[in-house]
């Protein structure tokens, strides 16, 4: 079947030489944005210097003012991006966007080309991962265009109990969905360079077979129509190297996930539209829910190890931004197309898991400082994308430092004698004076910048009529209020956690590469252990503020209270029961919950089994005759005599003492060897009743 499909893509061996029309528009739009941000930030910074008692005339106040200026610029950038997105959406969309340039009528006639849909995984929940793939497979099959697409599960899992389950889930998927030769499974035995290394490994083996590669995450879902449109857009635009869709969050069950999901669905379109209109052909790649032009990507986007000191050495962790920069450097375009609906992802269910993911991302984004400063040939827009990512995390320690300096400023005013001559050799005294009315004005203007885009998002939904799909006007307004409260509550907790991550990264404290929890709730114990620093800092802060000055105490409450309550907040927000209850009140709901999409129906219908309790991993592979057949089929014979001898020892140990006597690595060795799997299977079933396996078979397998 595969052989009948020809490579019909327009072959691009070099980027197009002519300067595309969007570049001038991009320059105009970005210049306008820069002017707006700078003017607004200059006014705000001037105001803050007037709020301070010495009007920014000593080192402490200069530091406070400088930090405020940077943080304000950061907020202002987001604010104007949202406003711009709103304006564009109300004007009917960006005329330069790909979907406006290539309407549906034109796309329908474009021939498809061979496309691989790859799913790199590492210790992900097996059931959910394969259910998502099955949903996309079945949906694509219904379109009648399945022959253009192959699916690859690219596993980097190290734990044999997980990868054996993956193999089994893959086999069952192929068998039950009649997908032999359509869905493939590959596990790297040596996982070099994390996810980017996994994808590069795929390209080296099978990249030449495909014109395009759609990259997914374990929790990704893309509607078949969207995948087909992405391929056709790539066919029409040979200068595009990467086309990124803007994934919507789905399947949020806990209160935490629901608020993230709701925020993404309500405010996301404004920001992604604004962002896409500013970036145009120099957008960022987010690492999943995107399509790559395979040959260009293979030629230009392999990542070398960084050669800088400490954090800036070794494998690149956040590879996606760098790959987009490489693509731009090679002369190809990278587009974000917010109009590509039907692209989905999930969020971690709890704050704990979200912060765990942020820990990885902090390190990855801070690594980009090296490329931002020393990267050669990287386009300015992609340097700004690096800057954006870096500031996402660096803003937290800056905010923390800002608060600490403000505390010192208040202490100085209350506890220390007044310094009338803060500037050396000055003839005239400076009278310290507070301007609380200016402080209130400034706080109000910051609040407007944070909340106005949210109000505009509601208006956008109301004007477009889409608000009905979220349950109506009043449920949306109440949901936005809940989301604002939760977001404001979480902000100081994130600030402290991100500050810690930044410091750990700066000192190059190594992290363990770990898969994400996408399904479970967090426990009270874990939450208290993880949030203990927040509790201690919040308590000390509020005690100090109360002792120091009553007004300062009141100003500190919005930061200190969330820190003190971080652990209970983390647990309560992670509860799915509370999330479901809120959903049953028609709050924090997204359209897919009200009018389910066919793709999500597939996902729900095809949930293969009730959970990991039913999976037996290594034990299943050597005890169960059916599972043993599957894994023997996928295992390989070992060639080296030394290895074979070692395996004999491991087998015997496993037979006499059970798998707990083996390390994870030793189990992997056995599970990769066909002969060992067969031998163990035969031997286990012949074991006498008093042996380890004899007891197991009486208590375990026979009961099952």
């Amino acid at each position, binding site marked *: 079947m595969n052989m009948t499909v020809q490579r019909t893509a327009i072959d691009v061996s070099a980027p197009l030489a002519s300067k595309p029309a969007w570049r001038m528009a991009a320059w105009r739009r970005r210049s306008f944005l820069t002017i707006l941000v700078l003017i607004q930030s200059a006014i705000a910074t001037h105001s803050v210097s007037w709020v301070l008692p010495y009007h920014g005339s000593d080192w402490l106040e200069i530091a406070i003012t400088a930090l405020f200026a940077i943080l304000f610029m950061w907020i202002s950038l987001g604010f104007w991006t949202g406003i711009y997105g709103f304006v564009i959406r109300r004007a009917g969309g960006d005329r330069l966007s790909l979907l406006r340039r290539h309407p549906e009528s034109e796309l329908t006639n474009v021939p498809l080309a061979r496309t691989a849909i790859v799913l790199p995984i590492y210790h992900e929940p097996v059931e959910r991962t394969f259910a998502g793939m099955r949903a996309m497979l079945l949906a694509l099959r219904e379109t009648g265009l399945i022959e253009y697409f192959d699916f690859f599960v690219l596993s980097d899992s190290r734990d044999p109990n997980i990868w054996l389950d993956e193999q089994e889930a893959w086999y069952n998927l192929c068998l039950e969905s009649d997908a032999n030769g359509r869905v493939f499974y590959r596990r790297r035995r040596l996982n070099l360079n994390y996810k980017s290394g996994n994808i590069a490994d795929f*390209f080296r083996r099978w*990249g030449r077979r495909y014109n395009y590669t759609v990259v997914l995450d374990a929790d990704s879902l893309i509607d078949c129509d969207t995948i087909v449109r992405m391929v056709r857009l790539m066919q029409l635009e040979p200068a595009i190297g990467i086309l990124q869709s803007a994934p919507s969050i789905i399947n949020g069950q806990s209160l935490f996930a629901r608020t993230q999901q709701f925020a993404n669905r309500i405010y996301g379109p404004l920001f992604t539209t604004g962002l896409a209109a500013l970036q145009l052909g120099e957008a960022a790649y987010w690492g999943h829910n995107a399509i790559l032009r395979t040959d260009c990507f293979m030629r230009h986007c392999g990542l070398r190890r960084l050669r800088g000191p400490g954090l800036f050495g070794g494998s690149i962790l956040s590879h996606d931004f760098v790959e987009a920069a490489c693509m731009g450097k090679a002369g190809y375009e990278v587009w974000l197309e917010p109009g590509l609906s039907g692209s989905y992802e999930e969020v971690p269910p709890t704050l704990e898991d979200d912060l765990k993911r942020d820990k990885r991302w902090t390190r990855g984004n801070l690594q980009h400082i090296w490329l931002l400063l020393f990267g050669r040939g990287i386009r300015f827009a992609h340097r700004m994308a690096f800057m954006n990512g870096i500031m996402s995390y660096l803003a937290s320690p800056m905010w923390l430092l800002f608060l600490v300096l403000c505390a010192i400023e208040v202490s100085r005013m209350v506890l220390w004698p007044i310094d009338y001559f803060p500037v050396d050799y000055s003839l005239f005294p400076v009278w310290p004076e507070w301007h609380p009315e200016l402080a209130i004005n400034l706080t109000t203007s910051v609040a407007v910048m944070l909340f106005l885009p949210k109000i505009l998002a509601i208006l956008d939904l109301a004007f477009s009529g889409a608000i009905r799909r979220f349950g109506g006007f009043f449920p949306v307004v109440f949901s936005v209020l809940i989301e604002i409260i939760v977001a404001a509550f979480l902000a100081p907790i994130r600030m402290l956690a991100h500050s810690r991550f930044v410091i750990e990264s700066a000192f190059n404290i190594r992290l363990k590469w770990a898969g994400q929890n996408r399904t479970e709730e967090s426990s009270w114990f874990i939450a208290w252990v993880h949030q203990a620093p927040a509790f201690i800092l919040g308590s000390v802060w509020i005690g100090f503020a109360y002792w120091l000055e009553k007004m300062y105490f009141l100003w500190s409450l919005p930061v200190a209270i969330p820190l003190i309550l971080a652990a209970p907040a983390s647990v309560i927000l992670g509860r799915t029961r509370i999330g479901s209850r809120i959903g049953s009140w028609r709050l924090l709901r997204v359209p897919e919950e009200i009018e389910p999409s066919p793709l999500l129906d597939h996902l729900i219908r095809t949930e293969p089994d009730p959970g990991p309790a039913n999976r037996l991993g290594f034990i299943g592979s050597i005890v169960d005759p*059916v599972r043993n057949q599957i894994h023997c089929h996928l295992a390989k014979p070992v060639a080296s005599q030394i290895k074979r001898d070692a395996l004999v020892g491991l087998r015997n140990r496993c037979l006499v003492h059970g798998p707990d006597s083996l390390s994870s690595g030793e189990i992997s060795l056995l599970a990769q060897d066909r002969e060992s799997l067969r031998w163990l299977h035969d031997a286990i079933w012949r074991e006498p*009743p008093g042996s380890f396996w004899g007891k197991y078979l009486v208590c375990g397998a*026979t009961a099952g």
Partner: protein
Amino acid sequence: MNYVSSEFILARALAYLRTAGIQITRQFERELLRLIEEALADPNEDTMRYVMEGLSQRFPLPQLPVIQAAPPIQRSSVGHPSL
């Protein structure tokens, strides 16, 4: 050689067949009992081994279809531009 009762061997063999997805019928049980009887007839034989080895010959287990794990490899290289 430890003595294992035929009752235990019968339970083990039935468990194996069930785990393998075989529907146990009267005919199957009779065949299995005959296999155990053969094993018991030889006092030097390891009864458990004899029965478990005989299972696959007497009761052909369902063979799973071979699924292609990966398409044929077409090797190529990935370029690593300097940054």
